[in-house]
């Protein structure tokens, strides 16, 4: 994969199953929710990889499992040459300095009893990076970087709006000079005009600090805007992965095609002419995914093999990966 570009993260056959148990005291394992079911992808240095999918597609679980906030069921995560699965305790914690996360809910992800200054300085303390005056100086610099007045350091999170809190979350993520930031729906709870402010900030920080992003969201237009490459997830699997223009101009997977056509474009002239692929039904339960291709139950183009054999995730064109029997046959 992409020999000419250096990978920061390589994820191979990553699986995360959550067990379903019955019984109050003696818990029997009766099944699994296959939240992430065998996904493989690379994140190149300095790029933004967008991860889109609907509710329950497993996109958030991918992000959390990559940091080993959830213990993976199976698979490999190679971060800058180091196998994260082989690390324990202190080693892993040390590695986590280089990988940070921004969360969706700016209300729940900041401790209401801590001042903004101590929230941002906490990673510096935990990892013993800097103390005293140096720590204070760094905290103030971080506030400035994300567009907040350093004077706000003594205030509490409730005094800030959603957009400002998200900036605090970003400052905290930046505190340790990470290489990779996993942005998990960082703008979903914000108003449109504030979303643009936060996205522009993320883009500026990326070019100034040379950051690599995994940008997880359900808003296709926004993910396409910020990403260099995009991966589309459905029911625990990546269906298609390629660069942002290719996936829009030439989507191969029937699910990607339907998803793209379902996104409304804020232009009545475009909307008038658009042909929508309206998918029937709902996403099946990840506890009982369909046999064969996960999308076969809703796919408008499904053939017999789709409900029997699981399609492989293959590189159909250079840099364009897809898991679909139809595409495989055509290529």
């Amino acid at each position, binding site marked *: 994969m992409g020999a000419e570009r250096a990978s920061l993260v390589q994820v191979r056959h990553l699986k995360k199953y959550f067990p379903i148990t019955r019984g109050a005291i003696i818990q029997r394992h009766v099944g699994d929710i296959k939240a992430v079911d065998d996904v493989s992808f690379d994140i190149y240095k300095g790029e933004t990889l967008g991860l889109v999918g*609907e*509710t329950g597609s497993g996109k958030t679980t991918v992000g959390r499992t990559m940091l080993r906030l959830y213990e993976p069921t199976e698979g490999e995560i190679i971060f800058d040459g180091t196998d994260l699965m082989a690390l324990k305790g202190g080693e892993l914690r040390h590695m986590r300095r280089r990988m940070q996360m921004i969360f969706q809910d700016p209300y729940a992800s900041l401790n209401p009893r801590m001042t903004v200054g101590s929230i941002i300085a906490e990673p510096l303390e935990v990892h013993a990076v800097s103390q005293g005056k140096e720590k204070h100086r760094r905290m103030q610099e971080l506030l400035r970087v994300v567009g907040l007045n350093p004077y706000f350091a003594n205030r509490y999170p409730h005094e800030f*709006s959603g*957009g400002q809190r998200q900036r605090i979350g970003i400052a905290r993520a930046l505190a340790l000079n990470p290489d990779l930031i996993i942005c998990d729906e960082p703008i979903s709870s914000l*108003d*449109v*005009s*504030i*979303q*643009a*402010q936060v*996205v*522009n900030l993320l*883009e500026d920080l990326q070019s100034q600090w040379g950051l690599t992003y995994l940008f997880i969201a*359900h808003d*296709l*237009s*926004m993910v*396409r*805007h*910020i990403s260099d490459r995009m991966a589309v997830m459905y029911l625990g699997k990546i269906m298609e992965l390629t660069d*942002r*223009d290719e996936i*829009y101009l030439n989507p191969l997977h029937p699910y990607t095609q*339907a*998803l*793209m*056509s*379902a*996104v*409304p*474009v*804020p*232009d*009545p*002239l*475009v*909307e*008038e002419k*658009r042909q*929508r692929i*309206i*998918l029937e039904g*709902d*996403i099946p339960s990840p506890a009982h995914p369909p046999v064969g291709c996960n999308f076969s139950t809703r796919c408008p183009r499904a053939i017999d093999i789709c409900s029997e054999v699981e399609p492989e995730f293959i590189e159909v064109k250079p840099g364009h990966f897809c898991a679909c029997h139809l595409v495989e046959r055509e290529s």
Partner: protein
Amino acid sequence: MSDHQPNQSPNILLDLRNLTTRFYTEDGVVHAVNGISYTLEEGGRLGVVGESGCGKSVHALSIMRLIPSPPGRIEEGEVWFDGRDLLKVSNADMHHVRGAEIAMVFQDPMTSLNPVYTVGFQIMEALKLHQGMDDAQARERSGELLALVGIPEAFQRLDDYPHQFSGGMRQRAMIAMALSCNPKLLIADEPTTALDVTIQAQIVELVKRLQEKLGMAVMWITHDLGVVAGMARKINVMYAGYIVERGNVKDIYGRPRHPYTVGLMGSLPRLDAASGARLVSIPGMPPDLIDLPPGCPFAARCTYALDQCLEEMPPLEEVEGDNHIVACWRWKQVAEAHHGEGK
């Protein structure tokens, strides 16, 4: 109909005049809706767009007289609907209007459905109450309605409880319930915000199809400019409790005149955009509705603002006909800068 009643024109269904709603809270008076006026014709499709706190939902609840009071109060205005002012009718008449003449679909279908009754029971309830049907008739009609909104095996699903329905199906059931008494106006308040994009597309198509089939007027309230682009004919853009711009959908999207509308369009990434374009964000935040500035509420964030904007609220002014109106002192400069007009 007597002479002084304003909506004599047969095709005006809803005529709002200077509607003003405030909430009296411990922190102060929240100016949620600040004197808005507009009309909606029979069978019309209106999109009401704006961000949180712009008053779009409160204005709809005011039409329905569903503002919790206290702390809320409709201070002023008239809501002419089908020949009468809804703010003046008795509570009993209002009960009839709600459900039978104006129906509303809310954002969260799980909290709008009662979890302890079956879906069928809840649809039948409205039919029995408003249409005087007996059980058998109501059940038959409920099944038809569920089929109409595209629920497979509709008659069997009548006995399901809401938790047995998926999010999209619950919203379909809510729409079935809303349509049960053939309302003249359907108010959809962010009905697809909680749903995934493929399910959202299903619901939007459904409402469009039903609107064409049944001919009711639809008011679609949303923060998502994309959703209403393909569905509405008219758009009201709201900001801080005011309508700041109103016009035909093509004019609003194609040639917005209010700096806020222009900013909103610029903040929105488009799926069909080419690479590299940076979003044009609006600086700052919406104003505090308790402490509204005296002039234009958008002035503090506006790149066009002059001293006059900070002091005096601009009136809604007509832009070259066709009912395109805008509340901005400097709309001509905005138009010139963005569309190369007025030179």
